[in-house]
């Protein structure tokens, strides 16, 4: 029954996203294209933070690895969109393996600091190789380059449905993954790492796998952002892009499959609407975060699961 409800919920979310394309005004269609890409990033982050209990402050490096892997391989390697996309995702995957081997030797606050330092190093590497990356300015993927099999990805329809397809794949894959034995083991690590180890699980290997999958999802989001919006820049590797997925997941509901999407939508529109009224919109966002932390510490979806919908995956 729970499996059926879960499948129905995920199907409804995807159907709603398709329907939104036809009912939303143009601006919000564009906004939702961006939201779905960023939600992929949040979904990846949620696997590590929400399900495994590892708080990374350096995920921007994986997002940026996907973005730069995509952009540099197009502009310097002459690749077309799909091979470049594969390069971007592979770059993020390889980086997450390397970072995982080193960072996972630490736990707790040390893990946060080490991931933050790795991300800062990655950011400075981008600036250092400014001859290729154009440093902080970044570079553009020209409109003519962004097409697949003759489909121009820069039209609103193609952009929306490309973002939707990528989001749907990641959303359903993650929903399946966290219900699988692998996902249950990650939750076991989150709840009590020592007990999981005593039960015979290879905790180190599982945490590394979680980090790599999380990094791959982040890389998909980074490559998708460059592909759909045509810009590659160092600001996406800066520290605030490591903080964003943490906020999205906390707001939406850590350890829930729909939480990341809810968190991105909430945060996006909170800033978008409040910035129309005041320059102090980050203060508004901060107050909203404090209120949510006080009254709904498990995030929107987490609180729903606790109070009303106990089967929420």
């Amino acid at each position, binding site marked *: 029954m729970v499996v059926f409800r879960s499948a129905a919920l995920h199907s409804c979310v995807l159907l709603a996203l398709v329907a939104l394309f036809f009912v939303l005004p143009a601006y919000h269609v564009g906004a939702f294209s961006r939201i779905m890409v960023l939600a992929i990033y949040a979904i990846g982050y949620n696997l590590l933070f929400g399900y495994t209990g590892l708080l990374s402050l350096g995920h921007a490096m994986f997002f940026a690895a996907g973005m730069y892997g995509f952009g540099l391989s197009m502009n310097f390697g002459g690749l077309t969109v799909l091979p470049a996309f594969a390069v971007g995702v592979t770059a993020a995957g390889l980086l997450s393996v390397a970072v995982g081997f080193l960072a996972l030797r630490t736990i707790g606050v040390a893990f946060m600091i080490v991931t933050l330092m790795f991300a800062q190093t990655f950011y400075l590497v981008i600036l250092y190789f400014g001859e290729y990356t154009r*440093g902080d*300015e970044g570079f*553009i993927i020209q409109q003519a380059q962004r097409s697949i099999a003759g489909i121009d990805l820069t039209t609103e329809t193609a952009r929306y449905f490309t973002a939707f397809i990528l989001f749907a794949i990641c959303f359903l894959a993650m929903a399946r993954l966290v219900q699988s034995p692998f996902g249950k083991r990650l939750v076991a690590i989150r709840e009590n790492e020592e007990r999981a180890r005593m039960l015979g699980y290879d905790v180190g290997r599982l945490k590394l796998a979680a980090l790599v999958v999380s990094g791959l999802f982040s890389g998909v989001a980074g490559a998708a952002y460059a592909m759909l919006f045509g810009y590659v820049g160092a*600001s996406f590797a800066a520290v605030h892009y490591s903080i964003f997925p943490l906020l999205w997941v906390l707001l939406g509901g850590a350890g829930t499959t729909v939480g990341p999407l809810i968190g991105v939508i909430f945060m996006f529109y909170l800033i978008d609407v409040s910035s129309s009224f005041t320059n102090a919109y980050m203060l508004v966002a901060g107050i909203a975060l404090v209120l949510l932390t006080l009254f709904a510490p498990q995030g929107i979806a987490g609180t729903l699961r606790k109070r009303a919908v106990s089967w929420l995956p």
Partner: protein
Amino acid sequence: MTKTSNISRRKTLLGLGAGAGALAAGGVLPGSLGFAQAQSSAPIKIGFQKHATGIGAAYGRWYDVATNAAAARINEMGGINGRPVEIITEDDATDPGRGAEVLEKFANQHEVDVAFGTLFSHVVIGSAPRAGELKLPYFVVSEGHHVASGMLNRYTLQPGITDVKSQVISMAPFVADNLGKKVTMIYPDFAFGHDHRDFFSEAIEAQGGEVVAKIAIPPTETTFTRYFPNIPRETEVIYHVMVGPAVLTFVKEMGEFFGPSRPEIFGFIDSLEAVDIQSPGLEFLEGTYFWEGMPRYKQANESEAASAYRAAVGVNDSGAAIDDPSNVATYAHMFGCWETLHVIKAGMEAADYQGPADRAKLIEAVEAMSDMPESIEHPQGDKVFNGKTHQAFGKQFISKVGDGRLDVVHTASIEDGLYEDEVDYTTRSF
């Protein structure tokens, strides 16, 4: 008995007007008649992408002042094609991701006619692809070389301010002839600094000089003392272009390092925009030279147009707000907003711009511009606009710090800053 009508002429006219309005709104009248009626008094909407928050906030504040002053003047003159100008401001947080979102908001939510006003290069580069895709004319006031380099698209133009390449190469003759030929460059180790490094190195060599050392400062650096020993003894001129909040520390530490015997020093005022030159710690800058896009301090020979502009933006003779002398303007750059809005007005009038369907005509009209003589519309001075590269070229000023103020000692001509075209946007499709 004659039946008298109680319907007055005024009521009849009102009724007819209301009926026509309702029909036009309902789309019953022929399209062109209804459209023309609705368009004739609708404002021209200009989306101002403002750095209200983030690292560019000081610039954003003053770009806002110049923008609103220009819009007020244009409206006093009857607007554009008889329609008032409405400035719609959105904060881009000086962030390229948010910048692109703001352009989407302008195009699809506010339904502006054009977008305008961005300064920081990374925000321009992050936003320009969306401008091209949304087919929204995007007039930047960035001074970056990204427009003229050919990196962007036909919808992005920079008609109100000279780009950094032109600024830098026009400085080289003065530096080589008056300050020295052996130059050490100190610059931030990111794209803005790299532009200065590359353009100036080439330009000074063309003047028979050379860059004897290039000292790149990492962007996270907060103290600079350890870099100064890398300055070669043979250095005759230090060229610095540090930006950000650490610039005061940079100047102070450079003063402590050199003491009373220092080489000549030349810098870009970008370092000290919105900073009072008389701030404690900046005494060491006495006798040094700065590039200025427009002189901050009122000069004895300031033109009538420049003085009128200074009054219109509410800046006193020392380059600070009249109502708050501690609020120093970003005077070397903000004129770009004023001039760009007047270029938009001239372009729309030349194109007989009626609405978004005429955006391509507007761009072609601006591309057709060339000479822009000094006037109240162009108070910084004469400009030459290159329609192929979408870039304006103008005079540049070199000022010397003395008695706690900046005074112009050299004016580089437009010709000093010209360079070969790197792109022809007019060959690209809309």
